[in-house]
């Protein structure tokens, strides 16, 4: 039986260990409070004010929210554009990421180089990437349209300036940076026990059957994670639209966050923009909760 002296020493040592733990966590905690939690709480407050940056905010209650849902002419279009973008991008993101991961999950010469090349667009800054695409897709001076027009007489759409194609083009440009998702899928693929595949092969299962019955279920936690991250990211789309289309043509790519930016910095209505941000936070939180709830029916963490 431990003596009182031993118990006291353990408790003190545990406390010291905990203190050191918090000490090393402190930089991250301070960053979280100063750069994430603090601004979120400030945003919640500003959402109920008429803050315009030049004067102290005045409390206006739910006026910003009332205005948002009854007077903002551009809000319905921005919601529609955003939902279309999410609906297109998230499945494509997952499918392309998974397909690439399957393709690079092999022991071949140069496969590591291939993985690096596929990952490279992910580390490119959004602005640099957008400028490259702006040039590439230019209908006059770009790479694709002039060739088709002058050599074959085929008129391709002005990808970023066409009413029907601007949004899908932004989706496609976003897919270019799927490298990180690919790597996460790759890690998931490599954690699938090979014995299961061998056993299935012995039992006569073909590649597709093995993929469907073994790989996909074993990969479900990874798919779940990537789906949540991709959905949150898709709802926050801003950079590419800001640089490439500025919300046009005719607001077809006026995404929610781009409209929020306009309300904040062109209309100088930071209180209203804060209300928009709060609504977005709630929507994304609810969606994430939905993912969590539904995941019980299709995500398996079993490894045998």
């Amino acid at each position: 039986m431990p003596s009182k002296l031993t118990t006291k020493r353990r408790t003190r040592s545990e406390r010291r260990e905990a203190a050191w733990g918090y000490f090393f966590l402190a930089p991250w905690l301070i960053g979280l409070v100063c750069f994430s939690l603090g601004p979120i709480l400030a945003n919640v407050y500003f959402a109920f004010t008429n803050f315009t940056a030049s004067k102290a905010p005045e409390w206006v209650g739910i006026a910003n929210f009332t205005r948002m849902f009854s007077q903002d002419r551009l809000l319905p279009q921005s919601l529609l554009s955003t939902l279309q973008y999410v609906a297109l991008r998230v499945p494509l993101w997952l499918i392309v990421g998974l397909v690439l991961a399957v393709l690079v999950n092999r022991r071949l010469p140069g496969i590591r180089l291939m993985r690096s090349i596929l990952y490279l667009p992910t580390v490119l800054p959004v602005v640099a990437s957008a400028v490259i695409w702006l040039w590439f897709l230019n209908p006059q001076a770009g790479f694709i349209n002039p060739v088709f027009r002058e050599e074959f007489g085929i008129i391709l759409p002005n990808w970023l300036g066409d009413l029907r194609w601007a949004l899908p083009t932004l989706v496609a440009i976003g897919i270019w940076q799927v490298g990180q998702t690919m790597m996460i899928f790759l890690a998931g693929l490599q954690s699938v026990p090979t014995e299961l595949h061998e056993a299935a092969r012995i039992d006569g299962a073909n590649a597709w059957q093995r993929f469907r019955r073994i790989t996909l279920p074993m990969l479900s936690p990874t798919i779940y994670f990537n789906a949540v991250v991709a959905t949150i990211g898709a709802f926050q789309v801003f950079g590419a639209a800001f640089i490439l289309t500025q919300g046009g043509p005719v607001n077809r790519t006026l995404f929610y966050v781009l409209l929020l930016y306009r309300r904040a910095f062109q209309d100088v209505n930071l209180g209203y923009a804060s209300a928009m941000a709060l609504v977005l936070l709630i929507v994304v939180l609810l969606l994430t909760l939905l993912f969590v709830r539904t995941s019980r029916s299709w995500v398996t963490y079993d490894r045998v």
Partner: protein
Amino acid sequence: MPQKLKRSLVIMGVFAVFLGGLSHAQDTTLTFWNIWGGTRTPLLREVLDRFEAANPGIKVENVVLDSSVAQQQMIAAVAAGTAPDLYMTSAYELTAWAALGGFITPLNDYIAADDLDLGQYLKAAAIQGSTVNGEVLQLPFKLSTPMMIWYNKDLFVEAGLDPNDPPETWSELHEAAVALSTMNGRVIEQLGLNVCINCSDTGPENAFAEWNATNGGALIDESGLDVAFDVKGAETLTFMTRLMEESVGGFNNMAAQMGVDWSSQRPAFYEGKIAMHMDGTWFLDILRQEAPEMLDKVGVFLLPYNDATEGATHRGLVHGVPGYLIPAGASHPEEAWELLKFIALEQDGACSFFQMQRRADSPLLECAPADGATPNPFQDTFESLIETTGAVAAPPAYNAIHLRLKEFQDAVLRGVVPIDRGLELAIEDVRLLLNE
């Protein structure tokens, strides 16, 4: 080394460092936020160096911002209490910020203290555009001017048109655009004119507003509380739509092949694929840098007017004037005022900067081209442009109105909405904006 000598050297060293620090502490550093990027940055630095030489103790930190984020950075800075000492506005920011309050330091007291008569320096329209409710809130750095049409004289000759007699009226322009456009099936081999340049973006150009002005119309009525484009708007849009349809099979066909903005169409103009091109007075300097070989074959003319409208003539109508202002909360407003006077009013500052850029839209009463400067072959046309351009104050909601009108003309030209319905919706929305 003897102890006494060592001690003396240390004392002298400390004293020298202290004096050096003191002299730096006496220097005032002004931060000047502007969008004079590219080739203008070193030219502005030259002007600022002259100011510093004439004002010992004042240093100017030139901060060049991208035009797409300048307003955002300014708003964030004001909110954070870190506003610059001097800020360069666009034509429509001034009245919007004045209406909100708390953004701008009025200049009336500084003007009175220096016994300045702005009318001795600046053109009346420029002063009017910088004044809100009797308060001078900025000093203008240029006159707002509408676009003009730059054209390729060789292509005019090839099409059987007289390059020395460019179109004056809408009818003549329509005919020229049709004559100058060549198609191979649906493929556009040569574009006569894109009548709605930059219509799909959020930049300051507004083709509908400019064509409406040449039709004798206005955007906002004199009270500032109601629309005025309902009168001539439909006619203006019909002209724009018909010109595109009858020259190149419609705006959509042109947009698909030639793009819709300067980034696509300026290179095409240099290559001779576009015969007439809408652009501003600044295009002359851009041509000199990007396509000097074009200078001998280029001409320019004012936007034609609607010959079907009685009494119509060449006419430009601009809203607001861009300038430099001292933000509220600037750290050194007195020194900023000295800099502001230099770069907005003085020959050695304001005029010199425009002379270096070879511009003709200076708001100064006197700012002739510098001696020995390359003459502007289009000086007469530029002067006509300024003479025929009227300026009115931009209402506080002007930016939102401007964007709404851009969206409206883009939608009509692309066939998303018929002219009448588009106009009806735009009128409704602009009325709401004016009365918010």
